[in-house]
């Protein structure tokens, strides 16, 4: 009988951790000035004082890579939580519209907050609040629209996204404080202009979120089978749902407030991992955090260095990958899940 053993758990996470490290070193080496992976490694772990590579690697590239990793981990982990709680593998913070809600909260503070004395520090809390509010809206719709909840939920998310995007453009256009070109950054998701002073906050929100999800990982497994099943197996669903939804919103809010709307990370990463590792959340939660981090580091590296001198917003890369994956998953879902779960790990 296959089941999650401590060995499989440790081995899988060690492998993914090594993958993340490799992605990080690869990303350090990529960029306009050529740095070999070996030099990058040396600059990182054994820096010599007067080497210009050290400045490039540690001063310019490393902070952005750390940021990409934190944002990727947060989005993937939030995706796993939403998918389990809504019992829908297509739930992703972006598709559900909660990222849009978070971005709207952030823009509201940026454009109107100045008038009431709110500075940049208020952006992450506002994004969190926007995310949470959208989530409540969404859950109300899900509760009322019985029967059609899966499709209804996604449809509501799409519509809300369109609404949030319009509201973002509107707020940004009427406000003096926001440069017109910045709107684009919010709508498509970008790490190039992220403020690095929020990195510790992002790390904190991510740790809290992952800790909450891990602490109720077994609960997530049974919640994914439905509220009533969870109750029959002795899990108090109400309290756990609340904690997990707040945790996921913290992660989405933090990620969106530094990077705007980066979509599909929370869809692609958990889906790929489920195919290889199975759906057990005790492994899926930490694995998604690591793989999400590595995924976004690679995507961001491609965005900033694969197209010559032109830098793409990373959200464009994830959406180009995620759109087809979403359609493929939707098709498979309607066709009744053809795939077998491979037993690689």
């Amino acid at each position, binding site marked *: 009988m296959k089941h999650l053993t401590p060995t499989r758990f440790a081995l899988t996470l060690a492998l993914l951790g090594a993958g993340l490290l490799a992605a990080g070193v690869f990303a350090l080496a990529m960029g306009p000035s050529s740095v070999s992976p070996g030099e990058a490694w040396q600059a990182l772990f054994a820096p010599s004082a007067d080497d210009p590579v050290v400045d490039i690697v540690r001063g310019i590239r490393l902070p952005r890579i750390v940021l990409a990793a934190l944002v990727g981990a947060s989005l993937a982990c939030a995706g796993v939580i939403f998918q389990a709680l809504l019992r829908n593998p297509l739930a992703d913070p972006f598709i559900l519209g909660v990222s849009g809600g978070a971005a709207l909260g952030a823009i509201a503070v940026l454009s109107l907050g100045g008038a009431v004395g709110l500075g940049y520090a208020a952006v992450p809390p506002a994004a969190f609040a926007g995310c949470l509010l959208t989530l409540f809206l969404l859950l109300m719709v899900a509760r009322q629209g019985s029967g059609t909840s899966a499709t209804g939920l996604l449809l509501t998310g799409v519509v809300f996204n369109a609404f949030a995007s319009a509201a973002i453009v509107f707020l940004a256009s009427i406000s003096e404080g926001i440069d017109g070109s910045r709107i684009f950054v919010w709508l498509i998701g970008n790490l190039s202009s992220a403020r690095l002073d929020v990195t510790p906050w992002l790390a904190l929100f991510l740790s809290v979120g992952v800790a909450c999800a891990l*602490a109720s990982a077994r609960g997530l497994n049974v919640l994914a*089978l439905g509220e009533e099943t969870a109750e*029959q197996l002795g899990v108090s669903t109400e309290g756990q749902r609340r904690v997990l939804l707040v945790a996921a919103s913290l992660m989405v809010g933090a990620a969106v407030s530094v990077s705007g709307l980066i979509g599909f990370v929370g869809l692609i990463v958990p889906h790929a991992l*489920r195919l290889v590792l199975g759906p057990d959340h005790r492994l899926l939660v930490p694995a998604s955090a690591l793989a999400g981090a590595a995924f976004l580091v690679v995507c961001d590296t491609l965005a900033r260095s694969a197209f010559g001198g032109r830098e793409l917003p990373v959200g464009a890369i994830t959406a180009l990958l995620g759109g087809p994956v979403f359609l493929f998953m939707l098709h498979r879902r309607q066709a009744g899940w053809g795939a077998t779960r491979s037993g690689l790990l």
Partner: protein
Amino acid sequence: MSAPRQAVSKTSAGLCFESVGARFGEQTVLEDVSFEVGLGEVVGLVGCNGAGKTTLVRAATRSLRPDAGRVTLAGHPVESLSRRALATRVATVPQDIHVPFPFLAGELVLMGRTPHQGAFGFESSEDLALAREAMARVGIAELADRRVDQLSGGERQLVLFARALAQQSEWLLLDEPTAFLDLRHRIELLRVVREFARSGGGALVVSHDLGLIARVCDRLVVLAGGRVIADGEPGAVLRPEVLDSAFGMRADVIQGPDGRPVVVARIEEG
């Protein structure tokens, strides 16, 4: 009326429904339903669609709070127990569940151990042994590594039954556990339920299969219009007039080879 019943439950070791009433909006689903499922017995719950059988099961698992009356376990109201404590004493086999992720049958059976485990951690060797044993008892050991969402309805029902057995509870509540099963598996499942009762557990079986349930249950409770209209040994309960008021069907009751009643429905032409 309800006072003496509650006094009885104080000393009873059983799962007691005490004057349970439930309403959905304007509609009364259950009214003054009282009966007991003792340890060591199999009780069948029958009634037509919408008679309130599933509502009763949900009240026992605290998935639904009755509007009147209460459900007690060995004298303690289920509301006073934590969900976890309740789940170690009462296991439920639902009609079917939708599994949106590719869990394996073995993983689902292991989830029966949830109330005995912490929030995080790995399965103990005892958990694994109990899950394996439960699957072997139900005869689905070979399904362990198959995906639950790719099993047939009947196979999934057996997996859910094994999960309930792995829960190691004192009571089993089975909500139409045989609906998707072929005849051999129906008999097999009910045999395990009997075994469970003989080793000291109590079982409540909701079923439409009057023939099988009459042979396997010690007692039958008949619900009609949200009320108990008969409660007793199968032979005493399965009478044409009870069947008429419960199901609105004309039927003859004959004696089977084992002395148990057999219901033969009349099909009237024209």
